[in-house]
């Protein structure tokens, strides 16, 4: 491929996380090849995180943390009640004074950040370090895409970050079926979609405790993760699948200090007997019964176009060209769901290189692109706060469907982006050269109007604001 600065810039914005200094020049001789090369890197998708706890460890630590806090609260409550009794009716002031003496001054020391919040921020930091430090960021974009496809919610579980590291990252360039198995069997997913509450009505536990099914996980696997909505499955398929998934739960933390919070197949809660799901019969082989259904769903002909459409919609256009979706779906089917092969098909498809920047960057993509542009790592609390403001709170989608990939969903946040760009620029721009940054990030894409708006800005902060808000920077 000939030197093509425009294609290089497009590659970095459309498939990556935005150019860092020198990035366009670095891949200008072969933008497609550079994207492919990132897929071939050893350990692509993985992050080195020796200090982050596994899902099980995080679960157990938070359990202990909560137990201790409850105990402390109780002691404190007793103290207060005693103080109030002591003060009697002598006046509220004394009681208040006793109370405030009892309370240590609030500080903002890092060790005072509650454990669940600390884990969340550490996981967030690791995720954004990987994104900001990536050469192109294509594989990180794939991680974000699949993490959103198989989303969980950090309000429901402390495991949102570790889930992404354990169930998504190892498989983004592997087989779809493997990611599917890893995601649906992960404690975070089982908690988020209530499968830990689902008990086979005819199982030992179901009979003894008068408990029954929760269909949430089974339905979302069919509707969101594999076949897609209205692809032909019935309510009976959902119910039967839910029965098969009974017994997929997590070990109790209170009674199991070594493995509490980890996955366990609980035969006692598993609905006995064979089930029929989407045209296949599954004998009761225990845990393997569920694995067998997931394996069949992964290779079901409806799954390929569902997944292909989502991938094309995310990277290329709200309404992706049918030819592109067909290419991706065919590649998915031909390779039995080899995600690296499907991704390669995306990069090599001519439809993927339309010169028009059709999509608006999602908030996290835009924030990371801004940080990469100015060569900073950003403060993680600010990054997380920015995402909240822009309607894409980290690991907190409003529903299991995940965050939207339609432009319409993100267009309205433009005003908030301006506020954030302005604030960010006020903080950092004085020590930078916005014109050089513009050249290094959108140089080959920039319209004459955008160039002039940056060139004529009255101050460096205003120039940087104009760059971050330029259509060429907001879109990809």
């Amino acid at each position, binding site marked *: 491929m000939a030197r093509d600065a425009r294609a290089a810039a497009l590659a970095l914005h459309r498939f990556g996380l935005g150019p860092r200094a020198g990035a366009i020049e670095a891949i200008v001789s072969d933008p497609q090849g550079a994207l492919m090369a990132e897929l071939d890197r050893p350990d692509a998708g993985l992050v080195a995180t020796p200090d982050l706890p596994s899902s099980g460890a995080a679960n157990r630590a938070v359990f202990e943390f909560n137990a201790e806090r409850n105990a402390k609260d109780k002691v404190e409550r007793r103290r207060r009640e005693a103080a109030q009794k002591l003060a009697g009716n002598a006046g509220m002031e004394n009681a208040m004074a006793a109370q405030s003496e009892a309370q240590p001054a609030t500080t903002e020391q890092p060790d005072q950040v509650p454990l669940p919040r600390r884990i969340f921020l550490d996981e967030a930091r690791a995720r954004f370090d990987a994104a900001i430090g990536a050469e192109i960021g294509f594989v990180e974009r794939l991680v974000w895409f699949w993490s959103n496809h198989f989303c969980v919610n950090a309000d429901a579980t402390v495991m949102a970050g570790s889930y992404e590291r354990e169930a998504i990252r190892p498989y983004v360039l592997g087989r779809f079926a493997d990611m599917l198995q890893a995601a649906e069997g992960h404690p975070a997913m089982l908690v988020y979609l209530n499968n830990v509450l689902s008990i086979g009505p005819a199982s030992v536990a179901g009979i003894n405790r008068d408990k029954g099914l929760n269909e949430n996980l089974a339905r979302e696997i069919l509707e969101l993760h594999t076949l897609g909505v209205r692809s032909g499955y019935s309510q009976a398929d959902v119910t039967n699948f839910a029965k098969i998934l009974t017994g997929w739960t997590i070990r109790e933390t209170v009674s199991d200090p070594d493995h509490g919070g980890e996955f366990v197949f609980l035969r006692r809660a598993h609905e006995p007997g064979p089930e029929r799901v989407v045209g296949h019969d599954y004998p009761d082989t225990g845990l393997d019964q569920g694995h067998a259904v997931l394996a069949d769903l992964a290779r079901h002909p409806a799954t390929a176009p569902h997944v292909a459409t989502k991938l094309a919609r995310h990277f290329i256009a709200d309404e992706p060209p049918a030819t592109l979706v067909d290419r991706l779906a065919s590649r998915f089917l031909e390779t039995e769901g080899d995600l690296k092969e499907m991704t390669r098909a995306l990069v090599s498809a001519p439809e993927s290189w339309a010169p028009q920047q059709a999509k608006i960057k999602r908030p996290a993509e835009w924030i990371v692109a801004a940080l990469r542009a100015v060569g900073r790592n950003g403060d993680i609390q600010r990054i997380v706060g920015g995402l909240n403001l822009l309607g894409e709170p980290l690991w907190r989608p409003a529903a299991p469907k995940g965050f939207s990939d339609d432009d319409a969903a993100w267009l*309205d946040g433009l005003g908030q982006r301006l506020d954030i760009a302005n604030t960010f620029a006020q903080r*950092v721009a004085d020590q930078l050269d916005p014109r050089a940054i513009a050249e290094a990030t959108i140089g080959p894409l920039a319209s004459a109007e955008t160039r002039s708006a940056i060139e004529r800005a009255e*101050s460096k*902060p205003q120039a940087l604001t104009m760059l971050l808000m330029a259509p060429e920077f907001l879109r990809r």
Partner: protein
Amino acid sequence: MQADLLAPTRRALLRGSSALFTAAYLPRLARAEGRDPRFLTIVLRGGLDGLAVVAPVGDPDWRTLRGDKGLALDGQIPALPLDDFFALNPSMPNLHRIYRAGQALFVHAMATPYRERSHFDGQDVLESGLPGPGASDTGWLNRALSALASDGSAAARAQQAFAIGPITPLVMRGPAPVLSWMPPRLPPVSDETAMRLLDLYRHTDPAFAGVLEEHIGIAAIARAGGMDAKPADGSPAVQTGGIAQVRTYFAEAAGAAAKFLARPDGPRVGALALDGWDTHVNEGAVKGRLADLLGALDGAIAAVETNMGDAWPDTVIALVTEFGRTAHINGNDGTDHGTATAALFAGGALKGGRVVADWPGLKDADLHDKRDLKPTTDLRSVLKGLLRDHLRVDEHHLETTVFPDSATTRPIEGLLA
């Protein structure tokens, strides 16, 4: 985003302020004279139209030049007379009052040594104090403080400097330690920025243009209910009207600087930057955007005066900008980047009540490049006079380290009372 790690948060600073300021005292020579000088520099970024602030109403060519876009003593909103030649923008009654009290001094037809017209390079020269643009990472004000420390005329901690805002302006950066304070709110997105962006979107991205217009409209409606609401005056619907926020920010930022400088144990030298002066379109010097901004600046000056309290007689505020604007109004009722402009100084330490200017005239032949007010005074000579006589920075340092290669630019005498 990491930059603010360098700047203590407001809360952290207030908590620790007594400790941080205790040892910071003043230039020894000045103190020996029984003075305790304060010096606050306000950088007006964007290129202030000096002719719209201090107008040469006595120049026979003035009316032809600016017409009803220019200030006039008999205008719809009459300009405020300064002497028999100059008049002040009517949006600045506080500064006028201070001038009448002999505590404000304006220098006109003044420029830095920079003769091109790029904001970035112009600001670089203005703040670095170097003769030309370049990669300087220190500013003249900081180097002046270092000089105070090194020649023994000040105690070891006297060099402590103070900056207001999210980032320390270049003028204040350098070897002398800088303490910075962040106002509780950041400068709002200026109308100027929003309008420029909207203009860009209208030419390049209609979808974005529509959303931004809506956003600006909503913001204006939200503000309309506020205390700062002004009666509708038939101005266009896309007037962003963010001036209330700007007024608040200017007054808070400048007022806070004054509070710190006024403290007996506080820093003595501070700097902040106020943006928004690049008036290419619909300048509105008499009534409109520039008038509003100057009103906000007038409020900031008043806030400094108030918050300085007893320290006001020891105070000098310098309001400086990177360059002036074209003498003529352009095709969009605005002005483009120019050369000479006015610098404004206020404070009880000044021998004020006068406009210092070697007036070059306004005829086409008198203009620089036939378009801009011609510079006849070098800003460095004014600043050197102030730094020498107010802070007692020695002259050798002034012409070597503070304003390098400026030996031939002599300090102006007699600026102080």
